[in-house]
């Protein structure tokens, strides 16, 4: 893998993280990040949709007439979102219920349309796949990190998948008894987002980053 290809894959993780640096898709990020499992579920859904929409947009970039490219992208994205929605409803009903309205709203998630418009329709399929994976994983990391902090402080628990005898919920001793409720509310999400954004800005400026 050449350096440039590696850059396409890894820049979504940190340097151009869609949530912390590009500030895209904040609405679902703040909306579903109340429990870790919701963050992971949302991340998986976004990776899937982003991957396939990038592949198809890149494949069809020479066929789709320029004047109808946005409607075409929306049709492609909406189709994959509906697939995710139906599959989750059938096989993971509890996550489907928790994600609620944010699942269908992936259709208008700016990360996905943004990558289709800014990257996939100008680049090869291979690069588009790398870009989708990088951005998707970057989004998942960001939303899971926010969810982890919010859940640990806001409710004193970490909710994962129930496997066998493990109920899926880890209780954190002191915080479970005295949770900092603000973090599980909407105001706490915005507050935390502000802190994390400040941290990422400070970190990238300290590194003397080449860009913002």
């Amino acid at each position, binding site marked *: 893998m050449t350096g440039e290809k590696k850059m396409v894959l890894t820049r979504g993780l940190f340097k151009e993280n869609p949530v912390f640096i590009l500030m895209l898709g904040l609405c679902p990020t703040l909306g579903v990040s109340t429990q870790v499992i919701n963050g992971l579920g949302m991340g998986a859904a976004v990776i899937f949709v982003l991957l396939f929409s990038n592949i198809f947009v890149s494949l*069809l970039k020479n*066929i*789709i*007439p320029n*004047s*109808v490219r946005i*409607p*075409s992208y929306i*049709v*492609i994205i*909406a*189709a994959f979102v*509906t*697939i995710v929605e*139906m*599959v989750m*409803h*059938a*096989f993971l*009903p509890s996550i489907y219920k928790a994600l*609620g309205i944010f699942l269908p709203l992936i259709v208008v998630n700016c990360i996905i349309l943004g990558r289709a418009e800014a990257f996939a329709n100008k680049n090869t399929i291979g690069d588009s796949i790398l870009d989708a994976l990088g951005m998707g994983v970057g989004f998942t990391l960001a939303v899971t990190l926010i969810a982890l902090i919010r859940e640990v402080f806001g409710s004193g628990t970490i909710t994962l998948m129930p496997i066998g005898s493990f109920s899926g919920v880890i209780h954190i001793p002191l915080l479970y008894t005295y949770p900092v409720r603000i973090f599980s*509310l*909407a105001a706490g999400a915005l507050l935390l987002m502000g802190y994390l954004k400040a941290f990422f800005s400070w970190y990238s400026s300290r590194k003397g980053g080449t860009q913002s």
Partner: protein
Amino acid sequence: MRQFTRTGITLALIAAVAATALAMINAVTAPKIAAYELQVIQQALTEVSGGYTVGSSTTQTQDDAVIEQYTLLDETENVAGYILQIIGSGYGGEMTIMASFTVDGEVIDARLLANAETPGLGKKAEVPSYMEKFIGTGASTPVPVKKDMLDKSDADSISGSTITFSGVAKSIALGSSYIKLLGGE
């Protein structure tokens, strides 16, 4: 002109392919989703049954809001009450309420099923304990349909979701009077 035709055909083709793919996936997932919905209803039925056996069900057509009626049987197979599935209207549109009543129209228990209420506010009505304020009402005491009919702590618990509360309460009150009309048959 040719350019318009080409544009239109391309877009139509993309939409057609997408629709076909969705139809095929829907054929696989639809039965699973239906089975899950049924399981949710079964579980709610057991929860609200109050220890009675859930008997036969009949689909109701005489009242617009009541969609399904189940009989509740005691040990001697006598009708001890009814469970109703009622369509109410909440803040986010239609919601389904399942409530069980004795033959006198007294509320045994209730659950909020399918709904589109606001997470964190109206959605709280999904918690079983939300319905405690209705239990035992409907016969000698009226179903509380207004905030001032509740005591202080219950009234506080519905702050910010008054429309959801009034939707749930009206449905339960309607169910109660519906049962009274049946006259314990």
